[in-house]
């Protein structure tokens, strides 16, 4: 990255947290409203990438605090284990399990939501790994 744009940096500083919150909102509401793990993960990536463009890759990495490839691994693991939870109660792989009591804002909570969280993390990790790698090289 050549030169640092003050406007971009300022915009990124304010937009980034907003976008992250928005992405989590998208993830949680995804089952009933527009959104979901894919979009959420992408929006979160856009937020971090915006910050990366403004402040540099190292700053973005420091902000993220976790290696993108670890995010991928955790994401896949979360998605897989949410699918395997059904085995615990003697149901076929990937059967959705739901908690009876709805939470405020989120609504009903169940394994599909956990699965979506896995999607969110994997998408975010992959996108960030790609862009960090290409930006650093």
């Amino acid at each position, binding site marked *: 990255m050549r030169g640092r744009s003050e406007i971009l940096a300022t915009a990124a500083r304010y937009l980034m947290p907003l976008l992250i919150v928005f992405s989590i909102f998208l993830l949680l509401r995804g089952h009933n409203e527009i959104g979901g793990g894919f979009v959420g993960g992408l929006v979160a990536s856009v937020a971090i990438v915006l910050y990366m463009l403004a402040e540099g890759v190292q700053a973005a990495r420091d902000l993220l605090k976790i290696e993108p490839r670890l995010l991928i691994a955790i994401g896949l693991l979360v998605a897989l284990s949410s699918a395997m939870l059904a085995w615990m109660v003697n149901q076929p792989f990937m059967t959705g399990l739901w908690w009876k009591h709805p939470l405020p804002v989120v609504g009903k909570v169940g394994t599909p939501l956990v699965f979506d969280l896995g*999607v969110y993390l*994997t998408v975010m990790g992959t996108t960030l790994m790609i862009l960090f790698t290409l930006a650093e090289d």
Partner: protein
Amino acid sequence: MLVIILSGFIFAALIPWLYRRFGPRSGWLFALLPLSWLVYLAGQAPFILGQGQVIEERISWMPSLGVELAFRLDGLGMLFALLITGIGALVIIYGGGYLDGHPYQGRFFVLITLFMVAMLGVVLSDHLFLLFIFWELTSITSFLLIGFEHQRYGARAAAWQALLVTAGGGLALLAGLVLLSQVAGSGLISVINQNGAVVRNSPLYPMVLLLILIGAFTKSAQFPFHFWLPNAMAAPTPVSAYLHSATMVKAGVFLLARLTPVLAETPLWQMLVSGVGFLTLLTGALLALGQRDLKRLLAYTTVGALGTMTFLLGLSDALAVKAAVLYILAHGLYKGALFLVAGAVDHSTGTRDIERLGNLASTVPQVALAALLAGISMAGLPPALGFLAKELFFESLMESTWPLYLSLGGAILAGAINFVVAALVAFKPFWGRAQDVPHPPHPVSVEFWLGPLILSGLGLVVGVIPALTIPLIQGAAQSVLQFPLKVKLALWHGMTPVLGLSLLTMGLGGLGWAIYRSLWQGGRIWQKLAPVGPAHLYEVGLTGLRRFAAWQTRVLQNGYLRFYVMTIVLTTVLLTGFTLLSRLSWLGVGGWGSIRFYEVVVVALMIMAAVVIPRLRSRLATIATMGMIGYGLVLIYLIYSAPDLAMVQFAIETLTVILFVLAVYRLPKFTLLTPSPTRFLDLLVAIAGGMLMTALVLVVTARPMVPHISDYFAQNSLTLANGRNVVNVILVDFRGLDTLGEITVLALAGIGVYALVRLTLGRLMVHFEGLEEEEEVEHERAL
């Protein structure tokens, strides 16, 4: 029986370890496995042969395909299983001596055991497809064993030839078996054999028969596929004795016998099977003339013997079937023994050339004795089993519908040549005049003579006391024909025409032996005829195939991406376009719906952007223009009720632009590489592809939507999966497994990028840096 098969496979897997532990002498140990099976089988023999019972085992394997692990042990299976396990045990012991010190001896034990299991599987299977699997496994193990000495070109070529011929026939067989199971309505052989009439009256019968016969004929080296068998003699001798004489090549004959109740007794069967068998019988006998190699001599007479069995099964009356079964037993015993003898002679003297062998009886007396006993049987002399088999063969010829002078003439000719070959192989090397051999003959160890002596001794004992073998022959013939019958065997029938024929054959054989040198001179004519033989045709065909493959690779896989894209586009346009045009009558267009002004603007802008892109020279302008297409798509998705898609497209488009910006300064500048006439042609092809897609959209959307699974999702999304966003519910719940796969793919793509950028380049540089350093060091040393 499943236990037998499984224990065999498991044992084969343990052999490398056992071999390393016990060394070359472990052949004795490995022979215990077939011996234990032999004991088990012999224990079942009274039950199977005496009472005509069968043992059946069925385990469901692939129920959706109707394939079962179905095994069935009946008289025919018993005969073959006894041969396979008995000769197998002896051959494994023999291999311990013959391949002593060979670097691949362990491999030999593994392969031969695997083959033995596969062959047992063939004869014990009661399901067509199960049989086929074992059948192919024998082809593969045969391939590996022929190519055992894989450093030699000849061995590799022979292995390929055998595999191509038998596996090619195997494909035909598979097609035939699939058809047969369709026609008969079951894959179980025992069931099919009950419904023979259904199959024979089906219009598909000629097709079924032809395909199965091709499979059987290639495997059993019938004319015109006989040529692979003599070439397969490149295998180590115990392999030749076992696979290419006693067992595997009889698999085709076995299949014919097994399917006799279904397929036989039609004019077509009789014509094809006995016709081909007769031709093979003559071919094998005549081609043996002029051969000087012990193993090739035996191989050609094996071809002739296989022809005899096929011929007899083609006649398929009770007498002929009895003769065929007896012949299978007799041939397995004497030919197996003679091959092992040939191997012992080779080992002792270093040559297999009959002209150079002689007077070995004093050096290897036990081998000589075995050779003599087996030779008597092969020559068809009393009191050996071979004599009984030949008598029965003549007897069934007398009763057949074939013209007597033709069939008897051929049989007597083949018998006489067999006699001469028997004398050459079993008599001359041991009692003939001493000749020069590569190294002075040395005595051989017990492994070399035990097997042949047992086999040839058995042939003589059951010849003298035929009652010993009658139950076996009777049981096997009964299960071929599926009705009870009596077998009578005796050395002395009284003064019958058959005896006269036997005497005539012996007389001719004796005469042939006296003048064998001139006969063998005459045999050289085959070399002159070779250019028109099937073996040559095979070579020509194979060379042609290779040239064609090279040509089409050069033409189709030429490395020009442009050419690949063109091929794909033109093929698709032609095929799909043809289908569209041929159904023009019921295709229509219409139902385009209304259009609004802002929609026109969006689409027009996108079209303009797309058209401009190929002309742009600036990379940044290209990225911006592509952004127009991407964000245009966002709008289209938004207008047409796909908010989720719009959001994803928006995010991805943004990320793609960033991706390009990050990478673009490393990318080469655009240069004009292609001359304009070529570009014009490309444009025409591309337009054809584009027009096809437009036409497809118009044609498909004009028809009413076929109701599909979406309705289910729409109805049950909330009730079953607690979600109101149906798209998301499909992704994380209804089709969650797909999504799991997709995010895995995505993760792999990311890891791929990481690996490409971080690892490849680094490793390359390290590698080359190391190289340069080495060079520098060398350079310094030189200084």
